[in-house]
Each structure stands twice: as C-alpha cells, then as structure tokens.
C-alpha cells in the first residue's frame, strides 16, 4: 500500500516535470492565450503542485483518471478499451512461460550434464539474449511469411464479428459458442505470445534448473532414492517442490517484463492493445493518459506479485504451517 502511494507520487512527479505547457501542447499552436488560460484553470495547472497531487488522489479514489487530451475521452474509458487485448496476450504468454519454462528446467536438472541439458541451457540463454521484438520479427518472417502457418498480424480475422462481452476476444468467442472464432483467435495469439514469452521461458528454465540442481544434493533426495522411488517421481514430487519457490518469485518479476515488453510485440503484430495508445500519448505529452497507463500497469504488476507471494506461502510449509500470517 505504501508502495502504491509512492508509485503514484513518482509517476505524478515525472508527469509534472514536462518541459513546456501541456495545455498549450493540447490545444495546438492556433489556440488563443485565453483558451490556453481556460484549459490551465480546468486542469488545475495553476494550483501549487501539492494541491494538484491532492486533486489527483481524490479523483483517483473516485475512479477518475481525468480526460485524455489526445482522444478527448476519459482515460479510464480508453484504458478499458485497450487493456483487455494486452492482458489476453500477457496471460497466454505467462501461461506459456510456466508450462514450458518449468518443465524444461526440470528436464535440464534431471539430465544434468547430458546433451539434453546442454541443449536446453543454450536455448534458454538464447531466449533471454534478444529483446522480444527481435523474436517477434524473426518468427513473423519464418512462420507467417515463408511458412504461412500463422496469420501475420492482428487479434482475429476481420471477417469474424463477435459481441464484446468481456473484451477478451477468446473468452467472448467461447461465450458466443463460436468455436471457429475461438480457434481463429488462438492462431492469431500464438506467435505474439510466444515471442513475448521466450525470455521468460528461458529465465524460468534457468532458475528452475539451478535451484533443482541444488535440491538434488540434499539428503532427503538420497533417502527417497534409497526407498526406491522412481527417478521421475523423485523429480516431480521431491525435488521440484522446494525449487518452485525461487522460480515462482522470478516468474512474478518477469510478469512486469511481460507487461512492458507487450508494448514491443504489439507494435510488430499490430495487436490492438495498450501499446499504440501508450506510445501515442507519450509522444503527445498527454499527461493524464501517461499517468493513468503507468499507474494501471504498475497496479497490475503489484497484484500479480501479491498473488505470487500467497502462492509461495501456500507451497512453503514453513510459512503455511507457522502462526505468523504470511
């Protein structure tokens, strides 16, 4: 909570050091001095900074992030329109990160020193070594142009019309009972989500491997072996669980990277998410919209980290069984 207040202050501070008059920028060079003065009054730009921050906080608690000077709509409306597409991408990507990254790390640790370990380590290192937009461009070239397996861009084919219920296209398709639309959306999301996830997959695999290698040297693994448990069961039941804790922490942190890198991947695949909006408002110095976008992204990131902390508390018996609230 303290952190969230701090975040709001920091973002507010960044937004207020803009050189130049935001009212003037918003109205354009042809506006009269009177119009500019009016808008300054309306935006409370003449008030002291502390008062401005107070007004900002008050509006924030009323769910009001102000008007975007770029779209002339409430910032919350804009964000509500663009956020679901970004979230859909980030969630699919996060899902890939977990279901691919963790098992790869487990495999790598189990076959430590063998060729499969070397291969996985090399691939995960390559994954973290290029920004997501480079992977996006390369995958697009390979799997959309040369081998046209996946569509080139967009979230869903233009011909398909869906009623917007949740704003999440794939969920909307399921609600509408339109399986064709669902699979169409699925095909559209695979390339962007995978390019976005690759760095996280590499990171998760590397970390899972190193913590599992450490766990494998603990006495209780030897005990399990001497009891005659199968190697696969030792890997999945005994060695994995304590290793999950650092991996989950990193996945939580990587979620931040996903949210930010979604900006890059969305640009490549013309994904209708927050990216274009975010970049546009930054280029146009649209105060309220910048503050709103950064605040929403940070809040999402904090929520994910709280969820991760709770999950860790659940997995770690030392926390789960202690009286102290986690």
């Amino acid at each position: 909570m303290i952190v969230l207040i701090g975040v709001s202050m920091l973002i507010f501070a960044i937004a207020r050091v803009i050189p130049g008059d935001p009212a003037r920028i918003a109205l354009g060079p042809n506006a009269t001095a009177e119009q500019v003065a009016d808008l300054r009054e309306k935006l409370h730009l003449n008030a002291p900074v502390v008062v401005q921050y107070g007004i900002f906080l008050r509006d924030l608690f009323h769910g009001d992030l102000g008007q975007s000077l770029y779209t002339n709509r409430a910032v919350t409306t804009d964000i509500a329109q663009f956020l679901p597409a970004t979230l859909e991408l980030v969630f699919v990507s996060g899902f890939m990160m977990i279901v691919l990254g963790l098992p790869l790390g487990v495999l790598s640790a189990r076959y430590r020193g063998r060729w499969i370990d070397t291969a996985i380590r090399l691939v995960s290192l390559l994954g973290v070594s290029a920004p997501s937009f480079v992977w996006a461009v390369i995958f697009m070239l390979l799997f959309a142009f040369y081998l046209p397996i996946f569509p080139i861009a967009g979230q869903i084919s233009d011909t398909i019309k869906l009623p917007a219920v949740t704003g999440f296209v794939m969920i909307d398709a399921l609600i509408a009972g339109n399986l064709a639309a669902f699979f169409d959306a699925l095909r559209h999301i695979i390339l962007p989500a995978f390019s976005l996830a690759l760095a996280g997959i590499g990171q998760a695999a590397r970390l899972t491997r190193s913590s599992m290698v450490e766990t494998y040297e603990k006495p209780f693994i030897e005990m399990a072996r001497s009891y005659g448990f199968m190697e696969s069961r030792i890997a999945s039941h005994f060695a994995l669980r304590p290793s999950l804790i650092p991996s989950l922490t990193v996945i939580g942190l990587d979620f931040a990277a996903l949210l930010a890198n979604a900006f890059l991947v969305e640009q490549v695949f013309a994904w209708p998410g927050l990216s274009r909006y975010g970049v546009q408002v930054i280029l146009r110095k649209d105060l309220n919209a910048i503050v709103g976008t950064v605040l929403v992204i940070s809040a999402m990131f904090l929520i994910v980290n709280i969820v991760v902390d709770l999950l860790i508390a659940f997995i770690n018996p030392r926390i789960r069984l202690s009286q102290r609230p986690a």
Partner: protein
Amino acid sequence: MRRALFILLRNPLSLIGIILVAVVVLSALSADFLTPFPADRGAAVHFELANQPPDWPHIFGTDLVGRDLFSRIIFAYRISLFLGVVVLAIAVPVGVTIGLVAGYFGGWIEFLLMRITDVFLSIPPLVLAMSIMGVLAPTLTNGMLAVTAMWWPWYTRLVYNLARSEKEEGYVLAAEIIGASKPHILFREILPNCVPAILTKMTLDMGFVILIVSSLSFLGLGVQPPTPDLGSMVAEGAGYMPDSWWLTVFPGLAILFAVFGFNLLGDALRELLGVEQ
C-alpha cells in the same frame, strides 16, 4: 589469475562468450578503420544503392537510402556499449551505496531507503524509462538518464541482501570493536565481499542495457536518427518485410550476438567466482 584464465578457457561456452564479447568490443572500438563505409554512420544518402540485398561490398545489404548496413551496425555497437558503460558507471555506485547503507544501518534508514527502492522496482523498467523519455525530449543524454533511473534499484536490492547477512559476520564485529569508522566498515570491510556478485551482475547487465536501449529506440523513444541504433533499424525495416528481410534480420541478430556474448561471459564469471543466483 592464471588458474582463473585456465578455468574460463576450458569451458567451451565461456570461451565462446569471451570471443563474442571481444569481437563486439573490438569492432566497436575500431569501427573507423574496420567498417568499409564509415561515412554511412550519419545522414549519408546514396539513392542509387538503396535497398540492395546482401552482396559484395555491402555484405549485409543497404538500407532504404543506400547506406551500408554492416557499417551502421558496427557503429551502433559503439553507441550501445558507450551507453551501457555510462549507465552502469552511474547506476552501480549509487545503487551499491544505498544498498550498503540500508543493509548495514537498518532501522528507519533501511525502511525509508528500501521503500523508495520498492517503488522504483514496482514500475516495469521499460515503462518507467518510457515515461521519462516521453516527458523529456528523446535524446541520447535523456536516454541514459532514463535507463540509469531504472537501473540502480536492482543493485540496491542485491547489495542490501548481501550487506544484511555480511554484517552478522565476525570480521564486521571485529572492525566495530577496534573502532573503525562507518565508511571504513561499509566500503573497506563489507563491500569487498560483495564484489563478486556485483561484477557478475554488471557483466550480465551490459547485455541487458543494450537490450533495453534498443527496445526504447524500437518504440521511437530512444536514440534518434540519423545516429545508427540497432533497435530503430529493426523498427524501420519491419515495415518492409518479407521482401527486404535484411533490414530487420541483421540488426536483430546483431543484438542477439552481443547480448548472448555478455550472458555467456556473465555465467562463466558467476561459476568462477562462486556467486549464487
């Protein structure tokens, strides 16, 4: 020292890392002599050569106004490395000092400093840099400022955790008893024990600074044309796929090449210095 070198050279992955980093650094330093068309680093225009596929003498092809892509990539390395060095030269001392102070003194100092660090850590780095870049004019200096602003908290966190466990060690107590000054304890006693971890992270971070800077300029918020930059080259070429594939593929692979090298080297250092992740 000789033993360390031997260990580094024995592992093929470390060896590859050293070679990649050496190639990147040396080519960036000697860009003026090495590149076939050093004049193409700036706003040169040769429309008669525009958009040529890779061929001799333009081994990576030419861009939309006919500049040699290979020369521009090498000069882009120079700028990326320069940015990386400057960012780390500012962010590491700042972050390390704050981390040492917070970890050693504890109490309300720790609370205050670490909450501020948490605030910076809870905004996704790229988004933080983007908003700073957006607010200021997108120039090279502001780019460094933005990336530095998001980089120091990671060192604070790293050193904070190390300092907190180090201060329980006997040697710190001994220094306190003989009445060593606080700065002496912080920088001469505790800091040397944190150096392996800091050094490893710095090597890895050279790669990640290159990555973040290229991401910013990919969005048009970083290094501005005509200064060559790997990220903006990819962005510029992305609209001309698949026909002019070389415009995006070579700058993209150049990023991969450099960052991969720093990552391999960082991993090797980590193993050599016995740093835990």
